[in-house]
């Protein structure tokens, strides 16, 4: 165990964990965040995605110590005083969730990609989401929501 400083959603936290512990469990169980979730633990599905310094990462295979002091954003940080961040609002507008379990990964992957590639095309968005899985078949609405956000960011 060792003390690690994490900057999550604009706040600093010190956690006392095994430095190799995957970030996912620290976010969920030490910082009590609900957004990132376990889908595979193998980096294959996207359920655990968070954004570190603007890049999306799979927190299930990221050792906690490797992101010490970096700016980490989880989906929980995309709600401010009850107001949804535009990308979340886009997902709500398009009713882009069935069970919703995969959508954390969709939102965070798409946000990181679009913030770096404003006005991303539909094809580019689909390619960016290629490593994310949705079992409910919500793909059309997910892409439509991401596209709405891309148009807003690029406007």
């Amino acid at each position, binding site marked *: 165990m060792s003390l690690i400083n994490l900057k999550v959603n604009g706040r600093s936290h010190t956690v006392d964990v095994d430095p190799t512990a995957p970030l996912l469990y620290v976010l969920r169980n030490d910082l009590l965040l609900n957004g990132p979730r376990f889908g595979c633990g193998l980096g294959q599905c996207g359920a655990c995605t968070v954004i570190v310094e603007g890049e999306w990462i799979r927190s299930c295979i990221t050792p906690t110590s490797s992101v010490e002091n970096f700016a980490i954003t989880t989906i929980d940080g995309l709600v401010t005083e009850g107001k*949804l961040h535009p990308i979340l609002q886009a997902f709500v507008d398009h009713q882009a*969730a069935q069970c*919703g379990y995969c959508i954390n990964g969709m939102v965070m992957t798409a946000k990181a990609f679009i913030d770096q590639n404003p006005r991303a095309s539909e094809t580019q968005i689909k390619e960016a989401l290629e490593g994310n899985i949705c079992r409910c078949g919500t*793909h059309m*609405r997910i892409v439509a929501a991401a596209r709405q956000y891309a148009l807003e960011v690029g406007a």
Partner: protein
Amino acid sequence: MKNIVDSNQIPVTQEHDDALPEIVRQAAEIGFTRRDFLKGTGALVVSFSLVGTEQLLEDSGTAVAQSPSATKVDSFVVIAADGSVTGYTGKVDLGTGTSYGLKMMLSEELDVAHERIAWVQGDSALTPNQGATVGSQSIRNAGPVIRRAGAAARKFLVDLASKKLNLPADQLDVNDGVVFAKSDPTIKVTYGELVGGQKFGIDVPAANNIVIKTPDQFKIIGKAIKRTDIAQRILGESFAHNIRRPGMVHGRTIKPPTANAKVVSVDESSVSGVPGLIKVVVRGDFVGVVCEREENAIRAAELLKITWSDPVPAFPEQADLYNYMKTLSDARQPVPAPTTVGDVNAGFAASAKTYSSTYLWPWQMHAAFSPMAAVADVTADGKCTAWSGGQNPHGEVAHIVRILGLKEADVRVIWVDGPGVYGRAGSTDDATLEAAILSQAVGRPVRLQWLRRDEHGFEPKGPPHVITVKAGVDATGNVLAWDYEDRHFPLVPVREPHAAALIAPTPESVGSTDGSGGNGHPYYNFPNKKITPILLPWVNKWVTGLRSNHNRAPGDPARHMATECFMDELAAAANVDPLQFRLRQTTDQRTIDVLNAAAERYGWQARPSPAPGNSRTGVVSGRGIAFGIRQTYVAAVAEVEVDQSTGVILVKRVIIGHDCGLMINPDSVVQQIEGQVIQTVGRALMEEVMFDQYKVTSIDWISYPLIKFTQYPTVEAVLINRPTVAPGGVGEPALNPVPAAIGNAVFDATGARLRQVPFTPERVLEALKNR
């Protein structure tokens, strides 16, 4: 009566903002018991709007009582003194929007705005047991009961108002919980004033004993209502996975490495170095570990040294599976007679030509995006509260009672949002019992989630089919004789959680076939037909990775694949347009309407397949059509591109014609259609469980891939509303015609027939070689 709605033009007449995520309506009920409600006032007083989930969790008393009776109006509707209304149902919303449909049905009959109705679902202590949420039955079967309960409550209230206002009941009307005189709306009394805090004390009337609204009286049914749970699901606040209890620790379980392996010994010293290890739990062949921290529980599960009995082959070789299935005979005694119409032998004798094809469907998994997860809290005094995201909270109670040795009245299972499961958790979600076993063993609340390899490896799976169809046709190609044989393992056998089968299995049954929709019955007017479902024995496999179980629309996608691909073969043999070939052999109006609706929307040109002029090399396009039925009538047109050099199929577009009778919420219907089609394109193109003789080898998303973002088609739905026909389900039927429509489109594009799902590039290349 019917009217057609285009999915692109659904008028959204009711819309409201997504509720703030922290006001979590379903999870908010956690912690209330009916007994709590009843305390003091003799009434059920519900007040949740301002109380957060965490607070409710803190306040929660542990387990309670038996489920409320499913025959009492009070079990479904409660009106508090302040007039607030709560609806209760044992059915749970698996992300399909059914709770909106059911609430709309209550709202309609009760005449209370649906936005004002709080909704409590799937709590074994609070809600009536209406059976597992399976088979697209919520709206179809539970819905009518809720409507009758609502109508009975309304009648009861209007009768009370009649006495109070001194006016005959037929001179009164109701608007959003206010009873008023038709002649003078200022003469009025509210539901809250009439009954608030009191019980109705009446039974849910039989269907012939209560008048429910007719379609022309509907205020809310049939309107497109948007879901308000999207944000909370995205943010994850309402998931069972995120239930946190004071003192909660983390469990993982370890599955047998080979089928039917027995625990010989467990070397606990192998994990003694894992920090925060609380306990290694061994009961029969069930092994689990509990640790203070989740990542350490995972590590302990990896490290624990278990000696298992020697591997014994349990399954046929995968390459041999279909041959093996052909050698088996029906497991039932006596074997039921086939379903027949006319005289199939005479039909064949009179036929000008006969044809036959065999279609193969593999083991497929539900592949829930999250492995099953649950939290259980078993206290020293033998009370258990568990939070489950499965499909059958009431059903979990009995397993916990049996395996933990608790009293039924002491066990409460509370359903909380979970991932989509598509039938996986219809009999059992597995995790709830396992969390309870571990919690009992350590005396603390335990959160448990299966590992991905265990979810892939040990979820109960949809069994394979070998379907052989023979047809005799007349000189025009019309079918005179249809002989259909469907060989498959049990579709509905897994009735107990994995841990229960590892610890104390109940006697095995041969399982059952499934009496649902398709069953291979052609809905076409063939004068002579014989339908033979053969239930193959698949015994002694209930603890293995090939536990045979219902998968979304059990058996139906395979049966429709065979029927509808074969119809396409017959149409091509007769050189007739495949749509016309179907239309000329049915007189059923609903069948005709959905076929035409999909074809028209697509812009179907009548011509036989294959498409004239397509090259035999490079990328070619084609279109295919198919029909399906599972109470709800569905037609699909698929448009595909086939790369003849690689064998890769790209499904570009799927149009669904859809008639589910009375449509409750068109928005939900469209969402369900989109999801089913995209999921099923993946099932048709790439999903096949791989295994060897000892175990399942599809254990992650690489070895069992799902459809990707660069592979999904555009889905369009044409909805036919038939307000006078009872609603059919919408969570399964739309997937049925999809594999056949794709296979038929590939034939249209290339002239090659696909008869084995999934339609992998290798199989496509093989079929191209053989064309």
